[in-house]
């Protein structure tokens, strides 16, 4: 089984290839440059390097969100169109779930997060429970302060992982003190090979391609306002 994984949900750009069950290669950059311009070059370069033709692929895996709306759409559109035209299935994986893998062996809670502006973050809670690594609290958008207070009350050690760590580290330390743990700089990036690994395990069917959509977690602002107005009337 050969799989191509694509992640453009944050400003990290990641592409990985699983060939016959092994990680054959991955490309990852952590620079604030345009995904739309660079993604296809990365895919072509990696596939050529590991000697896989598009027609040899059995599965496409993409981060379905949350993250940058535009970023997520670039990955999903590319993935969906590849999958549809190659007649192979596509699977989506939460970008937070991918990030959480960096804390796989951590003894405690893991809170991967992506900045969502105005003091908010996209986050969820992950960790080992009875020997199984799982999603403990589902992905959401939340005021970071409220989320941190909630984590504090659990009394557990929490590992924070984020591409946007600089912006939030101070607040985390203030609220959680010594209960907060931070990774090396390498732990803050979504690894495309982890995305590929997670995606290869997931069941999916070719017929689901058309209905595959990003998971933005949040409504478009105009839509939210419109719904609120409807309620008022």
């Amino acid at each position, binding site marked *: 089984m050969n799989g191509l994984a694509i992640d453009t949900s944050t400003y990290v750009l990641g592409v990985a290839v699983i060939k016959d069950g092994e990680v054959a290669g991955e490309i990852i950059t952590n620079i604030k440059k345009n995904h*739309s311009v660079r993604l296809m070059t990365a895919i072509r370069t990696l596939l050529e390097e590991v000697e896989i033709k598009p027609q040899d692929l059995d599965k496409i895996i993409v981060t379905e969100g949350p993250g940058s*709306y535009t970023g997520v759409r670039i990955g999903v559109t590319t993935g969906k*169109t590849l999958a549809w*035209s190659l007649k192979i299935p596509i699977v989506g994986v939460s970008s937070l779930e991918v990030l959480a893998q960096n804390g796989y062996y951590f003894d405690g809670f893991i809170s991967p997060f992506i900045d969502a502006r105005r003091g908010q973050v996209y986050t969820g809670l992950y960790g080992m429970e009875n020997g199984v690594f799982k999603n403990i609290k589902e992905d959401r958008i939340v005021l970071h302060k409220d989320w941190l207070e909630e984590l504090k009350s659990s009394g557990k050690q929490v590992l924070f992982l984020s591409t946007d760590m600089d912006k939030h580290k101070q607040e985390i330390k203030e609220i959680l003190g010594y209960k907060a743990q931070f990774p090396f700089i390498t732990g803050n990036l979504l690894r495309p090979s982890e995305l590929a690994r997670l995606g290869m395990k997931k069941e999916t069917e070719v017929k689901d*391609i058309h209905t595959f959509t990003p998971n933005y977690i949040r409504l478009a602002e105009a839509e939210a306002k419109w719904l609120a107005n409807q309620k008022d009337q």
Partner: protein
Amino acid sequence: MTNNMNLIILGIETSCDETAVAVVKNGREILSNVVSSQIESHKRFGGVVPEIASRHHVEQMTYILEEAMAEAEVNFEDIDAIAVTEGPGLVGALLIGVNAAKALAFAHNKPLVGVHHIAGHIYANHIIEELTFPLLTLVVSGGHTELVYMEEHGSFQVIGETRDDAVGEAYDKVARTLGLPYPGGPHVDKLAHEGEANIELPRAWLEPDSFDFSFSGLKSAVINTLHNAKQKGQELPIENVAASFQESVIDVLVTKTMRAVEEKQVNRLLLAGGVAANKGLRERLTAECERKGIKLTIPPLSLCTDNAAMIASAGTIMYKAGKRSGDRLNGEPGLVLK
């Protein structure tokens, strides 16, 4: 390339609120032309919301690709190249079409051709009747008002453009002021035919030698006129407001276009863009062209509004001229026509 060789181009267009895919043979024969409009979704907001448009495009893209290819009865082996709108337009919307096109080009090893949206609108006419040069095109839509001069295929010279609102935009704003539903252009056009142009409204001629346009002053004048009448306790019949507004718009568009026709010494005029559906504009332009012996082409409505057949048609010409876009093709919201 020999002339008897069939060239089949798949076109993709997502610059605003229509997800469109078409398959066109030899630049002129439409094998399929599928357009999925989001207008119903945007109506409740009174205009196109970029984020919502982008979300719809992602949801629709592969459905529309599949439908267009099935209707054309082609598979990827039959397709010679992929043409896609690279700009101008809403950046988030453009990115969906561009990235889908790049994925197709990569997966099936096809050449990729980025197309300017306005070049597409112009080439909608090529599908109706083969272009002959030199020619002039009046492009009128919700996002554009331009006079484009062409000496030959693929060469575009913008000799005039709007300095503020696009004509379609002015229609929509006036329609909103008159309490008409979105999109307002067709409603204003229809009302104008029921009313009388008896209200004094300005015409923005700008500098005597300019082919540029300006519609924001006219739009403000309409709003002020309605406001002043209301303060005096008068009720202006909205069909007369619509008729007066439309007459001012058409006066300027037609007069400037005919002056450009004369100055550039062309005998062929094309009308392009969504506002080409406007009955008043069609009538006046047809009459003027008949009077002056100018050959006028106006595409049917389905090819005036945004569609991908026009992108495939323009893409065919560019493909033949050797234009190729690579993996780094991007959505360019401010792309200049040249």
